[in-house]
C-alpha cells in the first residue's frame, strides 16, 4: 500500500495575510500568514528546503571547461578579444579550504601567478613585434582592462550570468567613442575571492581589473553575481579602492543594466584615474529612469 500524501486538510487555524496582492512587487517572503504569531508549517518547510539547496549551491564546482568553451565560441567576443581565456586557480586547494581560508582565495597559486606573468610577457613580445611592424612604440606596455571571472561563493551565478554580461559589456566598450579600450585576455579563476583580481591585474599589467564573482547564495537567489572594479590592481589593494555592482541576475539587476553601469564606472575610472570611495556611481540606470516615472504606483502604501 503506497499513498501519495495529500495537501493539509485543516488550515482553518492559519490566518492568511490579506495582502497577497503585494507579492507581485517582490520576491521577498511577504504575506506568509501566521498561526498564532508563528510561520505556518508549509511556509516553514519551504524555507527549510531552500536552505538545504542553498547549502548545496555553495559547494557546487564551476564547470570551467564549459564556460571556457562558451567564451571562445562567443561570436561577439571573438573579434574583440582574440586570445583564449586564461585558466588559473587561487591558493585555496579545495572548497573546505576556500571557506575557511579567505586569505588563500585572495591570491593566485604560485604556479598560476607565474603562468599569467609568462602569458603577459608572451603577448607583450607579440605585440611589440606587431607594433614595430606598424611602426608604433609605447614605453610602458599596459592593458586598459583585465576582465576576470571567478566562482566566488556561487559557481551557479558565474555559470549563468558571466557570459551574457561580458558580451554586453565588451560590445559597449568596443563601440565606445570616448576611449579605445585595450582588453587583456579574460581570466577564469577557481576558488577565487574578490581580491584575486588584483593578482591577475598585476600580472597582466592592466590599468583596471573588473572581476565578476559569485556572490554568496541567498535562499531566494542562489545565483547572484557581483562585479568589482579596481584601478591600478596590485596584491594588497584595499576594498575602499574598489567599486561594486551587485545583485546581477534577471530577477535582480538585469544584464543590460549591469553592463551599462560597468561601462559608466569604467569610463569614469579612466577619467579620474581611480576607483573606490572617490568614484561615486552617478549613473542613472535604464530601469531606474523607467521607475522614476512609475513613482505613483510605488506609493500604493500611501493610498
Amino acid at each position, binding site marked *: 500500500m503506497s499513498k501519495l500524501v495529500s495537501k493539509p486538510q485543516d488550515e482553518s487555524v492559519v490566518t492568511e*495575510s490579506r495582502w497577497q496582492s503585494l507579492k507581485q512587487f517582490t520576491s521577498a517572503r511577504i504575506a506568509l500568514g501566521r498561526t498564532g504569531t508563528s510561520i505556518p508549517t508549509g511556509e516553514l518547510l519551504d524555507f527549510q528546503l531552500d536552505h538545504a539547496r542553498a547549502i548545496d549551491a555553495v559547494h557546487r564546482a564551476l564547470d570551467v571547461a564549459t564556460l571556457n568553451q562558451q567564451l571562445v565560441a562567443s561570436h561577439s567576443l571573438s573579434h574583440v578579444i582574440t586570445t583564449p581565456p586564461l585558466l588559473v586557480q587561487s591558493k585555496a586547494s579545495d572548497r573546505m579550504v576556500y571557506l575557511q581560508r579567505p586569505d588563500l582565495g585572495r591570491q593566485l597559486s604560485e604556479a598560476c601567478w607565474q603562468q599569467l606573468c609568462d602569458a603577459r610577457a608572451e603577448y607583450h613580445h607579440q605585440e611589440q613585434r606587431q607594433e614595430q611592424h606598424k611602426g608604433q612604440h609605447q614605453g610602458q606596455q599596459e592593458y586598459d582592462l583585465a576582465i576576470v571571472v571567478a566562482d566566488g561563493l556561487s559557481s551557479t551565478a558565474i555559470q549563468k550570468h558571466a557570459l551574457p554580461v561580458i558580451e554586453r559589456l565588451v560590445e559597449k566598450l568596443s563601440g565606445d567613442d570616448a576611449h579605445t579600450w585595450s582588453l587583456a585576455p579574460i581570466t577564469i579563476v577557481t576558488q577565487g575571492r574578490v581580491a584575486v583580481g588584483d593578482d591577475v591585474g598585476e600580472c597582466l599589467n592592466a590599468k583596471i581589473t573588473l572581476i565578476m564573482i559569485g556572490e554568496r547564495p541567498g535562499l531566494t537567489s542562489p545565483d547572484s553575481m557581483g562585479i568589482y572594479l579596481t584601478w591600478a590592481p596590485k596584491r594588497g589593494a584595499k*576594498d575602499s579602492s574598489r567599486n561594486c555592482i551587485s545583485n546581477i541576475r534577471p530577477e535582480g539587476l538585469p544584464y543590460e543594466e549591469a553592463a551599462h553601469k560597468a561601462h559608466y564606472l569604467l569610463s569614469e575610472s579612466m577619467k579620474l584615474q581611480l576607483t573606490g570611495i572617490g568614484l561615486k556611481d552617478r549613473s542613472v540606470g535604464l530601469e531606474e529612469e523607467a521607475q522614476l516615472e512609475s513613482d505613483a504606483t510605488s506609493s500604493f502604501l500611501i*493610498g
Partner: protein
Amino acid sequence: MTASYRWQQGDKVYHFGSLAELMAKATPERSGDALAGVIAESAEQRVIAQMALADVPLKTFLTEAVIPYESDEITRLIIDSHQLAAFAPISHMTVGDFRNWLLSDAADSQALSALRDGLTPEMVAAVSKIMRNQDLILVAKKCHVVSAFRNTIGLPGRLSTRLQPNHPTDSLDGIAATIFDGLMYGNGDAVIGINPATDNVPQTIKLLAMLEEVIQHYQIPTQSCVLTHVTNTIEAIEQGAAVDLVFQSIGGTQGTNDTFGVNLAVLKEAHEAALSLKRGTVGNNVMYFETGQGTALSADAYFGVDQQTCEARAYAVARQFDPLLVNTVVGFIGPEYLFDGKQIIRAGLEDHFCGKLLGLPMGCDICYTNHAYADQNDMDNLLTLLGVAGCTFIMGIPGSDDIMLNYQTTSFHDALYARKALGLKPAPEFESWLAQMEIFSDVDKVRLNQQLAKPFGASIALLSDK
C-alpha cells in the same frame, strides 16, 4: 614597551608575549582567530591564558595599548576619552575581580551606568573572555541603555526591531510591500532601514523621500535610514534630503575604517550634519552603526589583536557619536570568521555584553549565511538568549530571507515569538501606535488583529481593484 606575561601552573611556566597575545589566546575558540593565527593551541593553553588574564590589573589596560597610540586614532580616542573618576570604583581590581564584581549585587543598573566612561573596550573584552554565556547574559541584563529619536529605544522589558525591507533592484514597490508586511507584524520601531542595492546619492535621496512619505502619512513614531556610505548621506543632507539617521559600518582599528573609507573626522562631520536637521521629536540620537567580528581581519588590519577585541574597540568609535542604534551583524560575513551556530551564539552574546557595558544601545542582527554551519534553530537559540539578556533590538525581515544581502536573519514572526515567550514589548510610542492603528488586538498578549488594520485596508483594497 609591551610587557610579556607569565603564568605558573603546577611546575609548568607559560609565557605570553604581549597583552594582545594573552587576550587572543584567552578567547573562546572561533574560526577567525584561527585564520589570523592568534588562537590558543589547545584547550588547556586557552584556560591558562584565561587564568593569567584574570590576574591582570585593570590599570594595565590604561598603559598598555593593544595597538599603538601613535599609529591608530581609535587607540587615541580610547585613551584620551577615558574618565579616571568613573574608573575609580574598580581601579584596584584585576580582570578576574572585575568579573566577580560585575556579577555581584553591588553592580546594579545604576553602578553599571556610572562606570561606563571609566571602561575601555579592552577591559570589557578581557573580562568577557573569562565569562560564561550565563554571565554575559546576567550582567548585560542589568545594563540599561536608553536612546531616543522619534521614539524611545532600550527601556527595560522592551525589544525593538529594525524593519529591513531590502530589494535587489531597490524597487520602490517591492520595498513598500515589505514595509507594509512588516508593519502588519508590529515591526519597525527601531528604524525602517533599507540597504540600497544601488549605492549612489540619487538613489539614496529617492529612497529617503519614500520612507519619509510613509512615516508622515501614517504618523509612525519611528525613524528611517538608508544604509549607504556615510559620505553619500552627507551629500544627501547637503542636497536637502530628509535624513533621520546616518548609517555607517565601522571597525575597531583605524586600518579597518580606512578600507571602509571612513575615519573619525568624517563621522563627526556626518553626526553634526544630521544633528543640524533637528528631526528628532523625543530625542536626538541620530547615528546608526553596524559592526561585527571579523571585519578587521577581513580588511587585514588587525595587528595581531583577536577579532572580539577589535570588535569591542569599534564600540569606542560608536560611543563617541551618541548613536540611537548599534547593531552587531554577528553571523553576517560567514564561516571564515564565525564557523558555526555555536561560535555565532557566543559572539552575539559577547558583543551585546560588551556594547551594553560600554553604554551602547546594542542590538544584534541574529544571522547566518548559507556557507556557514548554522541554521534556524541556532538563531532561535541566540534570539531567545539575547531576549533574556535584554537586547535592544533585532532585525525584522519577511520570512528571515534577505533577498538582496543573501543571508538569513530574524523574521517579523521571530520578533513576535521573542515578545511572546519573554513578555517583551516594542518602544512605548510605537506600542501605542500599534494599538491605535488596530494592528494588534492585544499588545500585552501579543495578539494580532484578525482583520486587516483599517487605516491600511484602503491601500490594499485600492491595489486589488487595479
